[in-house]
């Protein structure tokens, strides 16, 4: 009879807490629709990984090692970096660079809004994390799940669980995090600044050559960024070439869905109670929020700085869209603009900055891999 209750008898309170956390993530995914494609698999995976003696993860019982499917997925998909890179192909196929081509100046916001990454990295070292761990925590501010996972899988495998949960949770919370920061740093008059639209259109040749040239240039300057940028631009080339429509659609839909599913559930293999229920986790989650706040502040303050020199003023809120959370951040900025002035259409500008943010976050990931030794 004892055999029937062996799982229950082995249950620790930490595992019970982790099962509750898994349940909470599933609740947030379904009831609040916070990044459901990722948080639901992560939540369910967390439950699978924390059931006592779970066959889903590796176990050492009586000196015998039993392999679990989740741990296997983690080894072949995340430790080899295959899953994040496949997601980059899918994301690249989804990105339309043409809004950015209409106002390339907005590329600079994709750089300024990465400030939170580096600021948080520095703050994390003061909390006692090693430089590599700190870099992995800072990259939560990339507001780009695959980049966070890619960097963390290189530098801090043990922290993958909390880093992924923080990255995806805060991406879902962009509409709550960004507005108060923007309001605190801008005046009403600044938020009402109107920006002229551009009717400029881009040739197909330009759209095809851009991903190829960017990959080569980025690769020459920072070879460690080639995988990150290369896979993103490969996906974009599939989209823009015009002869691989089926592949482009498959990358945007089937590939993105399947790999997201596997990515989420594989990450959960690291969310065992012994690795997750630590003070580190709370600090990482706190620092992640810090990163998003300083990203937003970096973008807004840089726009205000540019306004000191340019004739055609930029609405500083557009700077905040320089984070990679696409298209949520652009939508938030547009809605804030409309609240201040219902005839102010910031959407196209915010989308351009948001696309720049997608490039910027990948470049930031590549640079961190190159600079942190």
């Amino acid at each position, binding site marked *: 009879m004892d055999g029937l209750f062996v799982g229950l008898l082995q249950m620790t309170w930490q595992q019970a807490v982790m099962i509750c956390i898994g349940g909470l993530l599933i609740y947030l995914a379904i009831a609040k629709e916070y990044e459901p494609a990722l948080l639901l698999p992560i939540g369910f995976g967390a439950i699978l990984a924390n059931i006592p003696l779970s066959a889903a993860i590796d176990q050492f019982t009586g000196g015998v090692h039993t392999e679990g499917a989740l741990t296997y997925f983690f080894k072949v998909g995340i430790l080899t970096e295959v899953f994040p890179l496949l997601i980059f192909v899918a994301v690249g196929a989804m990105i339309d660079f043409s809004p950015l*081509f209409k106002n390339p100046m907005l*590329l600079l916001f994709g750089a300024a809004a990465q400030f939170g990454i580096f600021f948080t990295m520095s703050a994390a*070292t*003061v909390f*006692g994390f090693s430089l590599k761990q700190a870099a992995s925590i800072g990259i939560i501010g990339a507001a780009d799940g695959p980049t966070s996972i890619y960097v963390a899988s290189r530098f801090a495998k043990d922290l993958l669980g909390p880093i992924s949960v923080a990255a995806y949770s805060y991406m879902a919370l962009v509409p709550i995090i960004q507005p108060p920061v923007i309001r605190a740093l801008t005046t009403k008059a600044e938020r009402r600044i109107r920006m002229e639209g551009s009717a400029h259109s881009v040739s197909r*040749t330009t759209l095809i050559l*851009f991903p190829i040239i960017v990959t080569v*240039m980025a690769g020459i300057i920072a070879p460690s960024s080639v995988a990150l940028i290369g896979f993103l631009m490969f996906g974009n080339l599939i989209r823009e070439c015009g002869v691989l429509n089926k592949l482009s659609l498959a990358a945007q839909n089937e590939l993105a869905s399947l790999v997201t599913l596997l990515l989420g559930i594989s990450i959960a293999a690291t969310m065992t109670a012994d690795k997750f229920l630590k003070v580190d986790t709370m600090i990482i989650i706190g620092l992640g929020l810090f990163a998003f706040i300083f990203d937003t502040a970096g973008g807004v303050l840089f726009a205000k700085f540019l306004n000191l020199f340019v004739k055609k003023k930029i609405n500083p809120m557009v700077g905040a869209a320089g984070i990679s959370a696409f298209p949520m951040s652009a939508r938030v900025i547009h809605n804030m603009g409309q609240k201040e002035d219902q005839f102010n259409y910031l959407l196209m500008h915010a989308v351009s900055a948001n696309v720049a943010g997608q490039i910027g976050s990948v*470049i930031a990931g590549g640079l961190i891999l190159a600079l942190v030794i």
Partner: protein
Amino acid sequence: MDTTKIIDSLTSNHLVSDTLHLHQVNTIKDSISNTQDVFNSAFTKDAVNNLWPALEVTVKGMGGIFIFMVIFFFIIQGLDKLFPKKEEN
């Protein structure tokens, strides 16, 4: 009292002898030691020493991203001039 020592004494007295229990005990010990590590190393001299290389990466990283973006800006401008969109009509 040091919790790790209590667990060590429990283990050595064979109060917990089953290997599965040992695994759990080790898990708790790891958890406690990790927690103590964070508390012990935060804001220490070592942590602050780690800040300097982090600030160096910050300066180089932010500079690097801006350089990349300026290069991409010129690539876009160049491509747009070399291959302008032809009028549909």
